[in-house]
Each structure stands twice: as C-alpha cells, then as structure tokens.
C-alpha cells in the first residue's frame, strides 16, 4: 500500500539526489580537465572529509553551539593518533568504537 502522492515525492527526491551524483561522473570523465581543476579536485577529499568530521566532533547540532570537550572529540584525538600510526582502517574503526563505548560509560 503505497499512496500515489508518496510515490511522487520519493521519485522526485530520487531524481534530485541522483542528478548531482551522476552529472559530474558522466560529464567530467569524457574530457580532459584543466590542470587547475584537477589540482583543486585533488584537495577536495581532504577538505570535504574534514568539513564533515570536525563539526560532528566539536559542535552540538541540537543547540548549534561549539562544545569542545565532548566524548566524540576526546575519543577522536586518540583515534586520529591510532590511524596515523597504524594506517589501518579496520583497526581504527574498532579502536574508535571501543573507546567511544568506554567514554559513553565513564565520561557521561
């Protein structure tokens, strides 16, 4: 039982989600890009991952305020060090989870 209105809404959502994901892949892969653009795109991953991460670590999204010493941030410092030293994705995920589990138990 899916209403027609609902189907139209999620089809619209699907389209506007797909297009920004699709257009650059179709358009940019079939031509040679200017070197400044390639250089700029080379910095995008580091920039975008940091722009996703840091607000999640040091801001409270409910009150939209900076809150430095949250468990998320404290655990992130140790997780960062572990990632830099080991370069292990699986290990970092496990260590981060365990530390956060402990932090939730003992810090809150």
């Amino acid at each position, binding site marked *: 039982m899916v209403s027609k209105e609902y189907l139209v*809404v999620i089809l619209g959502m699907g389209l506007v989600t797909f297009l920004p994901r699709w257009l650059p892949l*179709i358009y940019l892969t079939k031509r040679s890009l200017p070197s400044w653009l390639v250089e700029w795109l080379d910095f*995008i991953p580091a920039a975008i*991952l940091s*722009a996703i*991460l840091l607000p999640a670590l040091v801001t409270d999204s409910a009150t939209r305020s900076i809150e430095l010493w949250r468990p998320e941030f404290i655990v992130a410092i140790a997780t960062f060090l572990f990632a830099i030293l080991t370069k292990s994705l699986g290990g970092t995920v496990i260590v981060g989870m365990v*530390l956060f589990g402990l932090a939730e138990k003992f810090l809150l």
Partner: protein
Amino acid sequence: MKSSKLVKYATHGERKAFVSPGMAAAWPICLGYLPIGLAFGVLAQKAGLSLLEIGLMSVLVFAGSAQFIAVSMLAAGASFFSIVATTFVVNLRHFLMSSALAVFLKNTDRKKLSFFAYGVTDESFAVNLSKFRDSRWDLNSALVTNYTANFTWIITTVLGGIGGQFIPAHAFGIDYALIAMFICLLVFQIRGIIYVITAIIAGIFAVFLSILIPGNSYIVIASMIAAAIGVVLKKTVGSGKERSDGV
C-alpha cells in the same frame, strides 16, 4: 554465512576477483549504517510509513540525512516542492564528491558509471577515493562496495521499521563506527603539509559555518574554499616542497 559466500564467489575464478575486495572494503560502512538505518526505520514507522514505503525510499533515494529530513517533513505535512527542494540542497555535496571521483574514472563504461553514480554517498565516496589511489582498485570493485552498502542500508531501514526499537543498536560504541572510518580515511588523504593545512582550514570553516547557517551547505562551502586555498598555497609554496610519497 558471509565468508562462505565470499569463498563461493572466489571459486568463480578471476572474472569475479573484484567481488570479495569490494565487499571487504564496505564492512565499516555497513557497520556504521546499522544503527543509523535502524533508527531511520523506527522514525519512519512512527511517522506512519509502511515497510514497503520505507524500503522504496531507501531504494529510490539512498541518502541517509535527506531521508531523515524527508520523513519529519512528511510527518509535518510539508509540500512536495519543499521536500524535493530540501533533498536537493542536502545532497548537493555529492556533486563535489562525484567530481573528485571522476578524476579516477576516465574512459570507463558509461552504463557502469551511471550505476556507480547511484551509490555515491559520503561513506562510499571516502572509501572508494582512497582505494582508487591503489592501482588494484577499479570501477567493478567500487560498484560492489557501493551496492553492498546500499543493500545494507535498505535491509537495516526496513528492519528498523519492523521493530528497531527492540534491537540494542547502540551497544559497543557502534554509533562511532562512521566517525572513526572518516577519521582514518581523512588520514589516508593527507599526502603532504598542504593537505594538512587544507583540511584544518576546511574543518574550522565548517565548524563556524555550521553554527551560522542552517542545513548542511557548510560542507560544500567550507571544502570548496579550503581546496581553493590549497591550490593557491601549492602555487606559492611551490610543488617542490610537496611530498610525493603516497600514504
């Protein structure tokens, strides 16, 4: 169960050699999707969506934060236009991610590219991008990673709708899985001092913009500015100082 499936695929020979690495690369994403997918299912079910409606949204949209927002907008009786417009703005960051991925996918099969585009999320972008620097990674492996994550998302959101509140989804610090994954993938992206500076600038910009402006457009604005500063820095400092050894 999962490992026996991998073994089965592996015996299919070389043509399927991309399947198990593709699935293996997706496990941190799947782990991270578990609590979020369940939470979404619970929320959607409370908002009055049926299991079929929940599953259909996860198939057609496949975008975590946009789906959360859409469900609360649906529950509040928002119009078609406002829901679709909000989804567009919330997911615009993927334009930037697909652009960065495009650099690694020159002259690839266009049909496969379209199927790949469907699965570009924050998480699959981060995993695939660091993998593409590895010469053994290709579009086939990336597709398997994307659809493994996609499948997990669909299953967990529907499971959440069935009875997610009874599943202890927040145990063992599982809520931190994606953050830890992003931390490590960010470390993988750092290939010299200019990348460190770019990341720090992007992070600080993002923190302040996230407080000043509603929504998540801070991600796109902060990273575009920071990447531009990175390019300028590289020009002024000179590429000679950049370390070329990959991480």
